């Protein structure tokens, strides 16, 4: 097995207690399997509620799967204790969707970006600061940003700061959970370009999550289409676009708003609860 990250038949069930002690079960993930090779860029596309963010949370172990295994270089991390997990965490980092709540408003950018390395330990302060400046430079920010606070930055800049922070631990895998969904199209282009450059420069492996197939197509070599907690279709991005084998994939392709494409009435316009 040469896969860097292997997701093996993972399910996740959330139990919520109702008003009268009735438990409701929500199956967020139903036997999802996925294998990511080193250096690959994989896109996961699907609507909200398809389980793509749940999967991201399981991979960075903000949550544990109900069943199934998540293997990092062959080691099952799905139920690892926090102390065992800690040294492995630096290898997988995540960038979240919301540029506003992902940076602590009371810390300076310097504190925010250097924090992962401080937690990791074993690096001198000068070393840490040097690396933070280098990464900020890579995402197109001035070193003077270090002394400023998040509220002084725009959404796109904050998202770049989040990317710099995630790269501090020299991760191999970067999970990008809708990193551009909250941004203007023009800013999105900026962030996508930066991500492309970083991947080439730092030999990163990407897992890019989005509801927009055009964005996923741009950034990823391979596309995974998810729906209702299950994988619908997997294949090279080009292939998925030109020869989608599932009706749902076609629906996703149709839905992407694009200049010059005639507007077509969606197959089923109605919606019910």
């Amino acid at each position, binding site marked *: 097995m040469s896969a860097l990250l292997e997701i093996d038949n993972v399910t996740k069930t959330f139990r919520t207690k109702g008003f009268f002690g009735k438990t409701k079960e929500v199956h967020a993930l139903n036997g999802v399997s996925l294998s990511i090779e080193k250096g690959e860029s994989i896109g996961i596309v699907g609507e909200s509620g398809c389980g793509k963010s749940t999967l991201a949370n399981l991979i960075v172990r903000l949550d544990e799967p109900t069943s199934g295994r998540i293997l990092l270089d062959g080691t099952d991390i799905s139920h690892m204790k926090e102390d065992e997990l800690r040294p492995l*965490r630096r290898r997988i980092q*995540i960038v979240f969707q919301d540029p506003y709540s*992902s940076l*602590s408003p*009371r810390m300076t950018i310097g504190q925010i970006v250097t*924090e992962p390395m401080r937690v990791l330990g074993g690096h001198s302060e000068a070393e840490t600061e040097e690396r933070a400046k280098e990464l900020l430079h890579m995402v197109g920010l001035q070193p003077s940003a270090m002394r400023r606070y998040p509220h002084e930055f725009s959404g796109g800049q904050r998202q770049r700061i989040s990317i710099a922070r995630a790269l501090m*631990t020299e991760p191999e895998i970067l999970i990008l959970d809708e990193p551009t969904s909250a941004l203007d199209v023009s800013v999105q282009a900026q962030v996508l370009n930066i991500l492309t450059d970083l991947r080439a420069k730092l030999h990163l492996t990407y897992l890019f999550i989005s509801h927009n197939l055009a964005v996923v197509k741009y950034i990823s070599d391979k596309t995974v289409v998810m729906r209702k907690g299950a994988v619908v279709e997997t294949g090279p991005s080009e292939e998925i676009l030109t020869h989608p084998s599932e009706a749902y994939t076609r629906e996703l392709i149709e839905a992407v708003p694009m200049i010059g494409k005639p507007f077509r009435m969606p197959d089923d316009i109605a919606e019910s609860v």
Partner: protein
Amino acid sequence: MNEAAEAAVRPSRWKEIWEIALRNKLTLTGFAIVALVVLVGLLAPVLAPYDPNEMNIPARLQAPGAEHLFGTDEMGRDILSRVMYGARISIAVGVIIVAVSAAIGIVLGSLSGYFGGRADQAVLAVTDMILAFPSMVLALALTAAMGPGLLNTMLAVIIVRIPMYTRLMRGQVLVAKEQQYVRAARTFGEKPFWIVVRHIVPNCLTPLMVQMTLGIGDAILIASSMSFIGLGAQPPTPEWGAMISTARIYAIDQWWYAAFPGLSILITIMGFNLIGDGIRDILDPRSRK
């Protein structure tokens, strides 16, 4: 702009806070009042014209005049000197009560909010129990049980105040722990203790600081009230509440006796309340520019 130049342009955090305070006249008034009261309290031995406990029976119950600016009490003690020493006591009482109860409340609230589970349930049950009583009544009962005296009163007020800070902190923590920056910290392996200390607490402090400033005024009032009904500071301690208590019977003919300690309480509490209202804006980094 190069870095050095930018550092020079960017004022320090305290300077910024000060600048914002300057813009708001009411907050500034609050700061001025509190500063004055604290200063008077600290410098009481220097400023006070008389020993606060020195009796001078022939000069008893003198109206305010050149010799005694605030008049004298039934033992001929100088009321101005007693009010000055009273500032010491009141400020100390207010600050200690709030500091201790808020510190305990912040710790309990953070733990119960962040970790949840059994400990949370227990904390909630106890705070609910305490909050079920009117705080004044409970403080009264506790002091009565422990025996009158300033220290016991403070202890009672601290106990009564803890749940308020605990609840406030817990609510803040519940919101803060769902923020993405807390989740991000977990993904790079930050230990729970440091998550609480570095990420959660600093982002929850604003409403607490406001509550604490308002709380000082409140604590001073409760402590004075307890002294007034005889459970707190005991005569001849120059505590404002205790002074008013003994002044009761002279209130009609010798108005100055009750009026000056009363005014002191009023002004001090007003000062803290003005600061409390203003501090909210100052501590919010988004209002700093």
